[in-house]
């Protein structure tokens, strides 16, 4: 198990390097330039001022040098750099926004699991019934409706039908826990429904598969009650692919958070990246994407380790 973890951790290095390098290149390839953004078209077209600003930002050096310099400072000095626009340290921004997105992510995942797993099991066990049909229709709708659409519906119709309920904005959990949870519930619901539908499908097919296995047949033949067959024998192995799926879909959560934070006006990491892209604030984009890719990679790793803990076969490969 120890060697497995070490191997997986080592594999993280090329993944994170690849992501950061791609981000670094992509934001420089997309059109629009930082000087125009900051200074307007007149200054941006004045070669002298332009050169001055570019050299102040370090953007006059070769691309590769900029990349190595940026990465080196992070790994050797823990220095994520400073925003081009307001000059504040990037790491401060990431750390102050992180908890907001974390709360959104955890609540969405909780909602997704709370919907997906029980409905999935039920749908498999009651296969072919009206309940199964309803669950499958829900899954289809959940998967095919983008979260920003669900989010916009909640925002627009929430305000018309329930004008007294505040669906927008963010209050820190430490300041007003109840208010914080009740406001975050709406974006978490918009995000959680989609992922919940996916988990439902995984759970359903996985449980169905396991229910056909020999050992389940044996359990049934022993005369065990159906509940014991499903929950004691079938569920444990049925949940293995579900855990992997949850890990993988946490990456989806991050991209969903970017959009929903915009729709619900939540000051999280997603908004941070979006505003930074809008302003061509390279250090913030690079720092946040590095941070997010590390988090996603670690979440997937933890999910895999959980699977390995449940299923010894995984460790051998």
């Amino acid at each position, binding site marked *: 198990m120890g060697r497995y973890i070490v191997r997986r951790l080592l594999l993280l290095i090329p993944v994170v390097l690849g992501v950061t390098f791609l981000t670094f290149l992509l934001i420089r390839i997309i059109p629009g330039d930082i000087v125009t953004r900051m200074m307007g*078209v007149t200054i941006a077209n004045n070669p002298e001022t332009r050169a001055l600003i570019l050299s102040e930002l370090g953007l006059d050096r070769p691309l590769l040098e900029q990349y190595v310099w940026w990465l080196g400072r992070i790994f050797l000095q823990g220095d994520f750099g400073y925003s081009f626009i307001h000059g504040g340290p990037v790491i401060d921004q990431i750390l102050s926004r992180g908890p907001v997105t974390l709360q959104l992510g955890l609540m969405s995942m909780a909602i997704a699991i709370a919907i997906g797993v029980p409905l999935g099991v039920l749908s498999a066990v009651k296969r072919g019934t009206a309940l199964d049909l309803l669950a499958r229709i829900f899954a289809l709708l959940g998967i095919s409706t983008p979260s920003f659409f669900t989010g916009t519906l909640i925002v627009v119709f929430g305000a018309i039908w329930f004008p007294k309920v505040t669906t927008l904005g963010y209050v820190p959990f430490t300041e007003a826990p109840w208010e914080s949870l009740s406001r975050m519930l709406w974006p978490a619901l918009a995000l959680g429904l989609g992922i919940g539908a996916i988990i439902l499908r995984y759970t359903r097919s996985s449980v169905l598969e396991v229910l056909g296995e020999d050992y389940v047949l044996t359990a049934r033949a022993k005369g065990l009650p159906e509940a014991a067959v499903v929950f004691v024998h079938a569920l444990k192995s049925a949940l293995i692919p579900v855990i992997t799926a949850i890990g993988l879909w946490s990456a989806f959560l991050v991209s969903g958070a970017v959009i929903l934070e915009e729709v619900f006006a939540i000051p999280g990491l997603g908004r941070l990246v979006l505003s930074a892209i809008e302003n061509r604030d390279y250090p913030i984009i690079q720092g946040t994407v590095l941070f997010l890719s590390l988090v996603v990679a670690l979440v997937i790793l933890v999910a895999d380790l959980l699977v390995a803990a449940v299923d010894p076969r995984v460790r051998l490969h």
Partner: protein
Amino acid sequence: MEIRQLSVARPTRALAFVATVAASGALLPAAVAADEQCPVRGGTFTIPFAPEPADLTPGANAQYAPSLIFDQIYDTLLILDRDGNLLPGLATSYEVSDDSLSVTFTLREGVMFHHGREFEARDVVYTFERLLDPEFASPWAAQLGSITGIEALDRFTVRMSFEEPFAPILSVVSTAWYTAIVPYDFTPENNLNEKASGTGPFKLVTYVPDDHVLLEANSDYWEKGYPCIDAVRFNMVPDPQTQISAFRQGNADIVVLNDPKFIPILQNVEGARLIEPAGAVNESGLGINTAEGSTADVRVRRALSLGTDRRGVIDTVLFGYGEVGTKISCGKVPYGWCEDADPPLPYHDYDPDQAKALLAEAGYPDGLDLTMQVSLPLDIQTAEILQEQWSAIGVSLSIEQIADFNQQLDNYINVKHETSIVSLVWQPDPHSDVYQIYYSTSPINLGKFADEELDRLLDAGKVELDVEKRIQIYKDVQRLVADQVYMIYPYTKPVNWQYVWDHVKNYQAMPSGTYLHLRYLWLDK
């Protein structure tokens, strides 16, 4: 009344604006007993706000959004009111020298900065020298024209000197976006996003990026008795739909709509009212490449202008909430061209038959193909309407959607287009409004046109101090541009449309979209 008394030293040659000071009382309620000023005091006024201001340092960048916030924190030497009049700000009067090469401002005494020091001439000198400092690289240095220096004559008098007369200076010193007055002893050593000090009606409490900007009332504000409210909160809400929802849920006192398609949503909401827009000053600008291609022929350009049914564009794209205009539109008093009051412009009224005849004359009897670059939603819709309108005169327009506005901007600066639509930004003076986009050597000349007569007029407008003559110059500019069709302006519209709840009293919209009236409004709740 005294605080509103702006003594115009040379009324016959007042710069830039007619400055009918006698009428200036119209803007600001008279300084009377506190209860009459503010029947109810206190409360927080909440504004859903976008885009993210990012940096609240005056003069440091060209973004418009931050200026809407430091408008509240800082003051300017003069104030431009809703009707284009100049009112006293931190300067109580100004005097233009006989040769028009210098302007002397008498400053208001007893004004306190938020950090507790009295405002004086040194702050004005510092503010302008900072803008002109090449190290600071302010985008607004160019707005100060041929300025050669600024000096403090005594503690409350400053003089600006110019190489040649510079007519726009008074509107430049009235615009916080360019010239918010910052204190010399505080600005250099502080991050103005965290701690700020100005003389404005509100003080910065906190700026949490992507979340909110909180301002509290400055109880020492020089306009005694104002502001009426305790605080202003700008909540960062990027999505317009979400802003409307925040308003409807009562989490905002105002909602600012940039696109009139949202007006019907709020039209029948009980207790909400639309604030009368302050005039249409925001033009849609259609740039045409006049250097190469079929559009280099003036007959083709005239045909395009004649083939454009401007009223039709306004009725479909803006649901009627716009006006037929040119670059200096009617809302920009006193320089604007008004459809009702001014003589009609050449090749401006819809006439598809004449358009077809002109195209045939230019050698395109069977029509021609053109492309149009667009990126923003209203511009895309405008292009779609034009596609239909122009097909009637035989022009087949293909729309090239550019994903990124900055890219389109780059293209337009370098004239890598046949035609291109961008919404143009409001500027407080006709010179800054048109000089850069029309002058032959300007880096952002939208169509690569070089017209000696146009250059001559623009140069004249820059230095002409007689307002009547200046008005004529800019009307001539517009006539010339219309005649040669260097640009087409499909519509002009207010900067935005603002809805407030009924409990918001004594609030007015400004042509520039700034929130000048936050200091005078009161909340009846």
